[in-house]
């Protein structure tokens, strides 16, 4: 039964990710006074791409064809670890938060390799940029996550969320810092606006798009789906770590339904917030990204320090 719910949760993750991306696009369009495409448009795009024949360059190696599958499956594996509607699932007990970061790193490694594989200028440029950003973003994310795990004294995500949930409402200075750090990292890692612009193919600014420029057909569909999944993973992480109230602790039908309703509400709120932020902020220069991520790291570090100094037992 528990395994069934775990599988159901992962399927929900995979199925809802394009909808979330569609909703974010909807919010942004409405804020910019444009007519929004249908919420189902990402699904239609994915369907259209899977029907098309992939065009593969002559110089591509086996790695290029294999990479989309690896990236997508590592994202699905990451989705099994993150609690969406219920805690204490058997899959989330098997891997902790460091493994989750590892899954992200694994997918990123292969997407960067795939970008380099074809040997075009854009792919290499995109890969080098992606690796630069991720090398700065990863420590910041780990720092933010360690603040949580030090508080809960477990690195298991589900255990940590359960700990926060059972403690009731406690204002922790360290969590405020960790929340801001994680939001900044999530924006950088999912390629949202101040760092990367997901809607443009302007050669000077693109990072993620540069790496996947050569992909088409079902390969492109898988990569797009994986990045939508990654976006949803970060959203759920932020929502469930810092505002875990409402997540199901028992596996009754009503508890699960309530959990689903609550997480949908939290994600809608997060999307609206993100859409506002993206509409108000301009994309920054590539060379200022390190300042931005340095700030995220500083926040993570401050969270850790304030956990030690302000909240410790002495």
């Amino acid at each position, binding site marked *: 039964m528990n395994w069934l719910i775990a599988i159901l949760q992962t399927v929900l993750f995979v199925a809802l990710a394009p909808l979330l991306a569609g909703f974010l696009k909807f919010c942004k369009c409405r804020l910019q006074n444009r007519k929004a495409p249908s919420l189902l448009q990402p699904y239609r795009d994915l369907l259209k791409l899977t029907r098309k024949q992939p065009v593969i360059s002559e110089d591509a190696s086996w790695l290029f064809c294999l990479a989309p599958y690896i990236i997508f499956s590592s994202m699905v594996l990451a989705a099994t670890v993150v609690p969406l509607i219920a805690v204490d699932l058997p899959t989330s007990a098997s891997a902790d938060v460091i493994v989750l970061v590892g899954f992200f790193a694994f997918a990123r490694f292969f997407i960067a390799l795939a970008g380099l594989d074809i040997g075009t200028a854009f792919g290499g440029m995109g890969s080098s940029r992606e690796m630069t950003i991720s090398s700065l973003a990863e420590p910041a994310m780990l720092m933010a996550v360690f603040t949580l795990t030090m508080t809960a004294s477990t690195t298991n995500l589900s255990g940590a969320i359960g700990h926060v949930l059972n403690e009731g409402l406690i204002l922790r200075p360290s969590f405020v810092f960790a929340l801001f750090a994680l939001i900044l990292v999530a924006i950088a890692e999912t390629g949202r606006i101040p760092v990367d612009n997901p809607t443009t193919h302007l050669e000077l600014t693109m990072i993620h798009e540069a790496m996947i420029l050569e992909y088409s057909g079902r390969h492109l569909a898988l990569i797009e789906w994986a990045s939508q999944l990654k976006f949803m993973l970060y959203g759920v992480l932020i929502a469930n770590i810092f505002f875990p109230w409402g997540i199901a602790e028992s596996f009754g039908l009503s508890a699960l339904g309530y959990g689903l309703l609550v997480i949908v509400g939290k994600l809608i709120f997060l999307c609206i917030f993100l859409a506002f932020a993206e509409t108000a902020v301009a994309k920054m220069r590539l060379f200022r990204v390190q300042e931005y991520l340095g700030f995220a790291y500083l926040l993570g570090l401050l969270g850790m320090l304030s956990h030690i100094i302000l*909240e410790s037992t002495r």
Partner: protein
Amino acid sequence: MNIESQDFYTQAILSMSALVGLTSFLMLGQGRLLRLIFVFAVQGLLLTLTTSLAAYSLDNPHLYISAVLTFALKVVFIPWMLHKQVLAMNMHRDVEALKNNTAVMLSGASLMVFSYYVLQPIIHTSSMIMLNALAVSLSVVLLGLMLMISHRQAVAHVVGFMSIENGLFFAAIVATNGMPMVVELGVAFDVLVAAILFGIFFLHIRTSIDSLDVDLMNKLHEVDK
């Protein structure tokens, strides 16, 4: 002491003190004047929130008045005035290249450690909360001094001065549940007068050395060299 065992008021005060400390650090590393003024206003807002929180949970109505004063002066009036002056003197586009930014930030961090060290003996006489909140407010004072030393623009000096006052105010709210009303009114009035006087000083400095960069004052001599 464990944060889980504290009441909600204490947790909130601790969170506030952490955020106030963060805004001080942000001001220290900020090269753009308008953003510096904005962060200063945010710090003022945090102080207002702390004051109203203290007023609510300690049931001390006169603190509401001081919260309103703080809001009016430090969130609205002074930032607005500085903002207007920066725009009027056309300095909003200059980015002040901070010399040895890393060294400044590091010494800021060591100042924070220093304030903890200095206040360590206080544990014997009062709670841990007091130590944390007082250490943060002392470090806000020291970081304000640091800001005045490290920046060259006169506007940044004024912001540093005001943030020193913020640190003292925070200590007063947290440690002694607010000063007597007379003292608070006096201090608020002093801050207001200081802000206006600084405005006049800006004008004079600008007319005499044609810039607000105080490093240029080193070139002023009685006799020509």
